[in-house]
Each structure stands twice: as structure tokens, then as C-alpha cells.
């Protein structure tokens, strides 16, 4: 991409898995060609006061295409991702039709090609996400799929989950990712079951629904030897169990969403479905446990679970509205404001969770996640850690508006995003 055009990112501090150093970065023909001081020439992007980091990677994004293009399209979702500093996102398969078929996956990949963010496709574990018959995992793997999930639905049948894990062992690098909520306990619930659900009269989804599946699937990982990834862990007990499983040496990984380390179930008190999400916002103790899990390495990635919905879909009652909230354009700032600034994480830890560790899990470490070095793909983001801004739902690049953070003041913002050498975001504005 960007054939021939040269850009120089000047005056920043380069940070990647190798550490920090003050350096300029020269980019040409989609690659980093030089990292050094005093570089000039081509188009210059000002990075003074900023960190120049590998582009962020989001393991968990709902782009809604095909099927619900009123809420988001691959194009608008990619633009939101770029503004959030992401250079790669993994598209979730709960589209209509679902991504359980090679033709649909191929179509999504084709639509994603050339957008302002690399779109990596996941695919279903089971046909129609129904939890009964396996999707053609091998064929989908052949299209480049590495992450298999029925997200939105839990693979509830332990026998089916066992077979999926066993089968995945024949697909090197494949990860079976679970939406861990036992439907027998969570069905009919709309928020965390606890003091607030009882008080508000909203049927609850107990943390035990998550904990049961996490403990079960850890045992299935032990039984099969296959890698299990837990999507959006939200309960303190689930974090503990993942930590124990890793100590046992099991091939287990986990991600956490920004809303699960920034919001509690008390946010539902006004009955506003902007705060409805599955798994639900939980207690302060759960939020604290997620933070500990992020800090001690138990949790491998911060993933947004970016879930756009039309205004009409959220203009219903809490119980009737669909779950999900936007995440791409606020994830980095929330991480910096809520985790780095208070000292829960170092900046390098935060970027590890947002970039190189998820890149490795998604099987795209050769393209994304750094390091920032000559010869590597020029997928970069430039972060101004001191910029303060207020989240304005009306000014998001996403087609949807369902952020729960409207009006919130955040510190830290993506100034520029470079995708394969092309500046797709300059001075916080998407370039196309």
C-alpha cells in the first residue's frame, strides 16, 4: 500500500515489546525502513510528546456485516478502529448469516480488504452458533481463520465443546474461544444478579453462570490439550481460575473488556440499556479482580467487545434492548485513564495487552504488534498520553452511538494511526 510515498513520524518516544527509546520512524512501501534520530523527508507526522507504538489489535469486535448494516458496516467499524489506534481487529461471527461457512467468511475478508484497518475473520465453532454440529473448521482455517467462537452464545454442551477442542488440535495455532455463560443459569437474565438486580427488579445473570463454564472448559483443556481462550472474563472467580489453570501449565488464555474494568452493575440503576452487556457489568470486587488479573498477566488481552446497535434498538426497555456497547474509540483512553494513570499498569504493560499479546493470540504477530523496527510492517499508532477529551457520542466514527461513556472526560488519545504505511488517522481525524 502507499507505494512510493514516504512518511516520517518525528519527535516521539518509540515503545514496543523491546522497551522505550526516543526516535523518529521512517516508513515507505508499507514497511518501517528506518528508526533513528533526526530523520527528515517525505510527509512528516508530528509525534512530539507522544508515544509511537505498534498498532493496537482487538480480538473482539462486532462489525455487524453482513446482516445489520444499519448498526455498523465493515467500513465504518474499520474507521472507528483506526481512530481508536487499532490496525487489526478480529470480526466476530454472530452476523446474519453467521460466519460458519467459507463463502461468508471470504466475503467478509474481501469487504475488509482495503479498509482503514486490517479485518481478521473469526468463525463459528458450531453451525449456526447452535451448539450442536461443528462448523467446517478446517476449511475456515484454510481461509486464515485462527479464532473460533460462537460468541454471543456459549457452547453449553460439554460434549460438543470437547469435540471442538479435540478437532482444533489438528489446526496449528487455532484457538477455541468461549463466551462463558451457562445458559441454564443466565437465560432470561439481563444484568448481574445481585443487590442491584434485586432492587431494580431486573432478572439477573449470576456470576456462577460464567464461573461454571470457565471451570468446566479449563478441565476440557486439560483433557484435550487444546487451547481455550475465554472471551470477556468479568467475574473475580473466573480470573482466579484462569490464573490457577495457567499455573498448571494448561493452554488457557483470557481477555477482558474495558467496561468490565471501568463500570459496575450500579450503572444500571437508571434502567438505561446503554449499560446492558453480556456478560453483565458486575460488582466493584469483580472490577478490582479484573484489574489484578490484567496487572499480573493472568489476562492476556484487553479486547473491546465493540457491539454497535442502532438507536432504535436501544430505545426500548432494559429487558427488551439487545446487549452490547461500543468500545473501539474509547478503549485506549480508558486503559490509560483507569489503569495506567492510577498505576495499575505501566504503559508498556497496557500496550502489551492492547497490541502484541493479542496479535500473537490472533495469529497475526508477523503483521501486527511490532516491534517498531526496520523491515517490519508499518502498522503503528501515535498516542498523546496527555491529551484530555470528552467522549461525544455524536462525534464517533462508528455508525452507532451506543457508548456508555458519553460525557466522560478521558486522558490520552490516539493522534495518528498508520496502516501499512498509510496515515489513516492524522491529528485524531480519519483520513478516508
Amino acid at each position: 500500500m502507499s507505494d512510493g510515498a514516504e512518511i516520517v513520524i518525528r519527535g516521539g518516544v518509540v515503545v514496543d515489546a523491546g522497551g522505550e527509546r526516543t526516535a523518529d520512524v521512517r516508513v515507505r512501501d508499507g514497511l518501517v525502513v528506518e528508526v533513528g534520530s533526526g530523520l527528515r523527508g517525505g510527509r512528516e507526522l508530528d509525534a512530539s510528546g507522544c508515544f509511537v507504538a505498534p498498532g493496537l489489535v482487538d480480538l473482539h469486535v462486532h462489525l455487524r456485516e453482513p446482516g445489520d448494516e444499519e448498526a455498523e458496516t465493515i467500513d465504518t467499524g474499520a474507521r472507528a478502529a483506526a481512530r481508536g489506534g487499532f490496525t487489526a481487529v478480529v470480526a466476530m461471527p454472530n452476523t446474519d448469516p453467521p460466519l460458519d461457512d467459507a463463502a461468508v467468511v471470504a466475503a467478509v475478508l474481501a469487504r475488509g480488504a482495503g479498509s482503514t484497518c486490517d479485518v481478521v475473520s473469526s468463525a463459528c465453532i458450531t453451525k449456526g452458533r447452535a451448539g450442536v454440529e461443528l462448523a467446517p473448521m478446517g476449511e475456515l482455517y484454510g481461509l486464515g481463520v485462527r479464532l473460533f467462537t460462537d460468541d454471543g452464545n456459549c457452547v453449553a454442551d460439554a460434549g460438543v465443546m470437547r469435540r471442538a477442542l479435540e478437532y482444533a488440535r489438528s489446526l496449528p495455532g487455532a484457538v477455541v474461544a468461549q463466551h462463558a455463560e451457562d445458559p441454564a443459569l443466565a437465560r432470561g437474565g439481563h444484568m448481574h444478579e445481585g443487590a442491584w438486580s434485586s432492587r431494580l427488579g431486573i432478572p439477573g445473570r449470576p456470576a456462577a453462570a460464567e464461573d461454571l463454564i470457565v471451570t468446566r472448559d479449563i478441565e476440557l483443556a486439560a483433557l484435550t490439550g487444546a487451547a481455550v481462550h475465554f472471551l470477556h472474563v468479568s467475574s473475580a472467580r473466573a480470573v482466579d481460575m484462569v490464573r490457577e489453570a495457567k499455573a498448571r501449565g494448561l493452554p488457557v488464555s483470557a481477555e477482558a473488556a474495558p467496561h468490565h474494568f471501568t463500570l459496575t452493575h450500579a450503572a444500571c440503576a437508571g434502567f438505561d440499556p446503554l449499560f446492558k452487556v453480556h456478560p453483565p457489568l458486575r460488582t466493584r470486587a469483580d472490577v478490582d479482580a479484573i484489574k489484578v488479573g490484567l496487572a499480573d498477566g493472568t489476562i492476556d488481552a484487553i479486547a473491546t467487545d465493540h457491539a454497535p446497535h442502532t438507536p432504535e434498538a436501544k430505545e426500548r426497555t432494559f429487558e427488551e434492548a439487545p446487549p452490547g456497547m461500543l468500545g473501539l474509540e474509547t478503549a485506549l483512553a480508558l486503559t490509560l485513564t483507569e489503569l495506567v494513570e492510577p498505576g495499575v499498569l505501566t504503559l508498556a504493560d497496557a500496550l502489551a495487552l492492547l497490541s502484541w499479546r493479542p496479535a500473537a493470540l490472533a495469529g497475526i504477530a508477523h503483521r501486527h504488534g511490532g516491534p517498531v523496527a526496520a523491515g517490519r510492517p508499518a502498522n503503528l499508532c501515535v498516542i498523546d498520553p496527555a491529551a484530555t477529551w470528552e467522549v461525544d457520542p455524536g462525534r464517533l466514527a462508528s455508525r452507532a452511538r451506543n457508548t456508555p461513556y458519553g460525557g466522560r472526560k478521558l486522558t490520552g488519545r490516539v493522534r495518528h494511526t498508520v496502516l501499512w504505511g498509510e496515515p489513516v488517522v492524522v491529528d485524531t481525524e480519519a483520513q478516508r
Partner: protein
Amino acid sequence: MKHLLSIDDLGRDGIEEMLSLAENFVEVTRRDIPKVPALRGKTVVSLFYEDSTRTRLSFETAAKRLSADTMSFTVASSSVKKGESLRDTVQTIEAMGVDAMVVRHSSAGAPHRVASWTDASVVNAGDGRHEHPTQALLDLLTLRTHRGPALDGLHVGIVGDVRHSRVAHSDVKAFHALGADITLVGPPTLMPESLEGWPARVVYDLDDVIGNLDVVYLLRIQLERQSEALFPSLREYTARYALTAARAKRLRPDALVMAPGPINRGVEIAAEVADGPASVITEQVANGVAVRMAVLWSLLGSGGSIV
């Protein structure tokens, strides 16, 4: 006060003021011409997303006795077209020019949502498992006529399916606000999952407390709960938690029996107890109109006095 969405909107002073006001309307409802011109020119629409002819008629009667115009918008949930959001419906109705919307919905918080989209006053006529504030007010009005204005130290037992009951939610808040001690009685499967913040204690055996109660409030048992494995059978429920004639004999001589109606005779309460001297169940129904007149007057006519 702009809306009545929850008993929390009133507090003790607001509840007491509302009950005093309701007593004025009790007098009005007993007249030969039980009607005052207080809300002439105002329009009250009942927006019912759940069948409840009794509550709807009670509100509409209250509005008519205040000389308001009434409209009724009843939506069987099956007939709501997919794609028309609650907000669309509310704004369509508002465009007709209404002053108050009385909202009944099977989802908690629906009246709160409606209130965020309209300039009209909103009255919660029952939202999911959340609240039913006018029921609590009429329960208090009934209790007051027998026990005087303060309920300090009065021991109220609320028996049955507390978990799924909006009436229980509002009653616990309202009775507590006026000083009553509250005991919730029923099987654990029908108690709230969390009691944090509930000013009540829980007892699983009705026979342990039946002799100590000043008021026994029997919640209606929804017959479908049996199929959700919340209790083994109606027969077992009745044996353990119904106010049978035998249990009623153990009540204090001055104890009152209340129920939100409609009651399942022979299930949560024996027919002879429901019709017996301790029962004030029919008074509750009669007080419903006066309480709803007080609420509509407070929101639309009084110039915003209460709270």
C-alpha cells in the same frame, strides 16, 4: 414532583402528604356526584403494554372523576410491530397532546424510559418486577383507616412470591418509610436473590411468625411458577404458605389480612379467610381510585406541591 416512578420519589413526607390528599378524594368518591372539575382540559393516556383491566379502569376512573379527558392505548405485546421502538410509540402519543401517561409494562424501568422521552408526567402503573407505587399507596391508605397515620412498630408479614412481585417491592419501601417492621415469608426460591438494601428480614416458615403479625399481606402466586421449578406443587405451596382457616385462627384478634388481588381463593388464601372479618381486601380496591386521583392531582393540578 413531575413523575411517580417509584416509592423512592416520595419519601416519608411525600407518602404522608399523598395519603392525606387521598383522604380528600375518598370523600369525593363517596358523593352522589363523585366528580370534581379539578383537571378539566387535561388529558391522561393509559399506555398499557400488559393486560391489566383492573388497574387500567382504576386509573381511568380516577382521571374521569377529576374531569380529565382519557385515552387508552393497550398493546398486546404480540401486536407491537417489530421495529417500532417504545420511544416511537411514546412520541406518537405525545404528539396528540397529553399531560400524563400512565404506563404499565412487563419490563422493569419502562416508565423511567418513557419519562426520559416525553414532557408529559409519567405514572408507573406497574413495571415488570420493579414497582407498583400506587398499589403501595392504596395499601397504606387502607392500613391507615384501621391503624392511624403512623405505622411505627407495626409488624407486617409479606407472604409468597416476593422475588417476582412489583407489589412487594413497593410495599416494602412504603411500609418501611412509615415505620413498619417487615418480615418476608416464603420459600427461598421466591425470595429476592439478594436482600442487600432491603429493610426486611426473611422467614421460611409461616407458622413461626403467623401469631406475631399485625398485618398479613398475601401476594398472588402465579400458577406458571410451578413449571419453573420454583416450588414442587400448588398443593405443597398451599400447605406451607397459604393463609388457611386453621392458620387464620392463630392470627392476633386485631390482625388485618390484605392482598393485592385478584386472589386465587384456595391457593394463597382460603375463601372463608378472604371474606372473613379480618380481611380488608375489598377496601383496598375501593381506595385505589382515591389514591390514583391524589396522584394525578399532585402531578397535574396541584402546582407541584408534593416533594
